[in-house]
């Protein structure tokens, strides 16, 4: 009978230096955050601000912008964009701020709790829940 065999471990070799790309070759991007703009003010975006594409991706679009525009051909919340793109919320808001300025997307602000209560809004939500 053969005893179980331990696998010997070796120190991990350092990662091989990257080969320069050949002409026309494309490297798969790693997860990356493109922080565009000038680091200035961000658009006022809520988790449930609905985003809808208002243009096709321009040739100058970054991969994030292209992916985002494909996702929001129908309205989608910033939270859903963050989930599908696997990007933190704040990163998505940075990308969207630039896209809003370039008029690539439109944003529909959420209805928030008001100091003057909107009873018709509450009633609409109640009717919707009752149908569940």
């Amino acid at each position, binding site marked *: 009978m053969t005893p179980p065999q331990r696998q010997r471990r070796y120190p991990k070799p350092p990662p091989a230096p990257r080969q320069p790309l050949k002409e026309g070759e494309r490297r798969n991007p790693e997860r990356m955050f493109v922080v565009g703009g000038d680091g200035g003010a961000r658009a006022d975006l809520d988790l*449930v601000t*609905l985003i809808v594409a208002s243009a096709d991706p321009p040739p100058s679009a970054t991969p994030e912008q292209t992916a985002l525009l494909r996702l929001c051909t*129908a309205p989608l919340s910033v939270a859903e964009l963050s*989930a599908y793109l696997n990007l933190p*919320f*704040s990163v998505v808001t940075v990308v969207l701020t630039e896209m809003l300025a370039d008029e690539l997307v439109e944003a529909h602000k959420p209805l928030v*709790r*008001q100091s003057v*209560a909107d009873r018709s809004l509450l009633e609409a939500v109640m009717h*919707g829940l009752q149908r569940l």
Partner: protein
Amino acid sequence: MDFKDSDTIPGPRTEDRLPQTAQAAVKIVIVGGFGVGKTTMVGSVSEIRPLTTEETMTQAGIGVDDNFGSDTKTATTVAMDFGRISITEKLVLYLFGTPGQERFWFLWNGLFEGALGAVVLIDTRRLEVSFDVIGRLEERGVPFVVAVNSFPDAPRYPIEELRQALDLPPEIPIVECDARRRASSRDTLMTLMRFLHSLAMTGALT
């Protein structure tokens, strides 16, 4: 799922797409300790498979900086599950399940303030984990109801005993629910909505 090709970025399934008429959204936050059933509740009423959004919170200047001169900061990633219910062809409701013991949540701008209200989900085996979040909601004037997720082996207390233990005023609803059941979770959300409506009627909503 494969991210290698940009053509395969995952998106909503066709049936998970909102209609073009969707114009505005509202949100409700479901808050409670770890394992209390927030995601279960979100999932039982959501029309989409619950999704996860995350945020990286950077903290500066916590404790003694024993790494003086270096560039290190403490970054914490907080993740939150959410679901969605289409109310009308124009209006969408989002439900966020948020761990209440994480004070980071209260740094997330507008998460609570912009919400219609909150459901505090509690487990009677660990009542004390909900104390802090209830206090924070009170401080911020976020209207909430309390739902007791009825676990089979959890101690059962009369509602009034719970109200006393949680030190809640008589007008705040406390209900029992089974977060696994759609009808029960829906009824809990209805309790919150009726409470918000009563606040609106009396003009107490500030």
